[in-house]
């Protein structure tokens, strides 16, 4: 039994605490390990805002709701559940939980006035990424240049390439299936959004700017054109 105990990792993040539950063991075992950890240091956890990363586990509403109530009893507010599983993401959303760390908890959002729109963190790569190069960032990535075959871009958010995208691009790498990949020439070796994987079919004719997104569980590319109002 002891071998089945999942690893519990605690990290401080901008929005409170992030607890990652290791992949080992079934959900009841994971939940026990989690509660045990919190009980052992109950003073530390009291009043905490908690985001929980459950890895690939598919969770239904009942067990997740129950956990939230148990945590509330311990004075811990569960506000986000992170997972690569679309099932768990859906469950979390139904329970009114966030599935992404970057966004603040609803209710705490202060609507910015129009003159100061809220931005999100992005990495600007002002060069061509050649074979063997890799860029990884926990926000969006903007490349002013090409991403050549053999190069790789991994972003927790969106990926924008102002040039040829011929290497590997993984947007929404921490599970955000709403992320998009845009390029002036979208011809990746492989494209991933969250856990969805696609390869580009050989293109006919000259490239046009395209945007790839997940629609109905599939990665699709559509023309990337300004929507001018």
């Amino acid at each position, binding site marked *: 039994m002891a071998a089945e105990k999942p690893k519990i990792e605690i990290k401080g993040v901008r929005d409170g605490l992030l607890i990652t539950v290791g992949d080992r063991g079934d959900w009841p075992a994971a939940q026990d390990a989690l509660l045990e950890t919190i009980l052992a240091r109950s003073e530390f956890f009291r009043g905490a805002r908690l985001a929980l990363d459950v890895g690939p586990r598919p969770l239904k509403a009942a067990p997740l709701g129950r956990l939230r109530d148990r945590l509330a009893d311990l004075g811990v507010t569960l506000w986000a559940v992170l997972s690569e599983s679309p099932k768990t993401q859906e469950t979390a959303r139904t329970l009114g939980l966030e599935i992404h760390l970057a966004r603040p908890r609803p209710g705490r959002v202060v609507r910015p006035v129009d003159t100061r729109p809220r931005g999100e963190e992005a990495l600007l790569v002002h*060069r061509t990424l*050649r*074979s063997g190069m890799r860029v990884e960032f926990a926000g969006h990535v903007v490349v002013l240049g*090409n991403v*050549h*075959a*053999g190069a790789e871009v991994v972003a927790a958010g969106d990926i924008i390439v102002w040039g040829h995208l011929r290497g590997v691009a993984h947007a929404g790498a921490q599970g955000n299936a709403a992320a998009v990949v845009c390029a002036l020439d979208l011809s990746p070796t492989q494209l991933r959004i969250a856990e969805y994987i696609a390869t580009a079919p050989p293109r006919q004719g000259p490239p046009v700017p395209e945007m790839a997104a997940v629609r109905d569980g599939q990665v699709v590319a559509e023309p990337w054109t300004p929507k001018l109002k």
Partner: protein
Amino acid sequence: MPGTVLTITSGKGGVGKTTATANIAAALAQLGKKVVCVDADIGLRNLDLILGLENRIVYDLVDVVEGRCRLRQAMIRDKRLPNLFLIPAAQTRDKTAISPTDMVHLCDDLRQEFDWILIDSPAGIERGFRNAIAPADQVAVVTNPEVSAVRDADRIIGLIEAEEKGPARLLINRLNPAMVRQGDMLAVEDVLDLLAIDLLGVVPEDDAVVVNANRGTPVALDEKSRAGQAFRNVARRLLGENVPLLPLEDESGLLQRLSRLFGRGD
């Protein structure tokens, strides 16, 4: 005016670095420049063979660096071109016998005496590559027009940029126009599109390269050879002349496309 150090390198081996070094050097010498080739491909000596100088080697690059001889003693003068010299590589020593700093010092000395210092680099991402790139003022990357060689070239171009030795220029070697026409080989514009760097020249596949190399006469000295002509054109471009690309075959469409491409490179 101090001389220019041009390092000739590649991602993949066997694409024609040594051939290019010997022939560009011979062509520059023929144009009246004082040229020295440094064979930095230690352990894989063959620049001396192409130049036909192997039986004259007494001292080598490692002997110079380790102080066993003076620089002048390790320079071998070419039989045909009195202003062409070679500093051969040591065949027996491994690549750690020389450091990048050694190469920088050596080239600083050579710059005083020569117009051009051409360094024949080993392929790939090893210590020898750093040695060859460290003293470079200019870098030429050699590739063949095939997908795997181009991919490796891309990696090396990235490393050259990382060493702040860029922008490198591209020498496409062994282009076979008939194969390009049949769609069996990447065209010049495909390679340039994939690598996004400037073009230094295009050398066609030519049996005369092998025949001349075996005789120890660089093909650049062969007036009739097309590859020889291509290398002579590269030499003139290095001297700042605007030389259009060699017509690879008598197909006017392709020809025009190529000259347009080259114009873009300048």
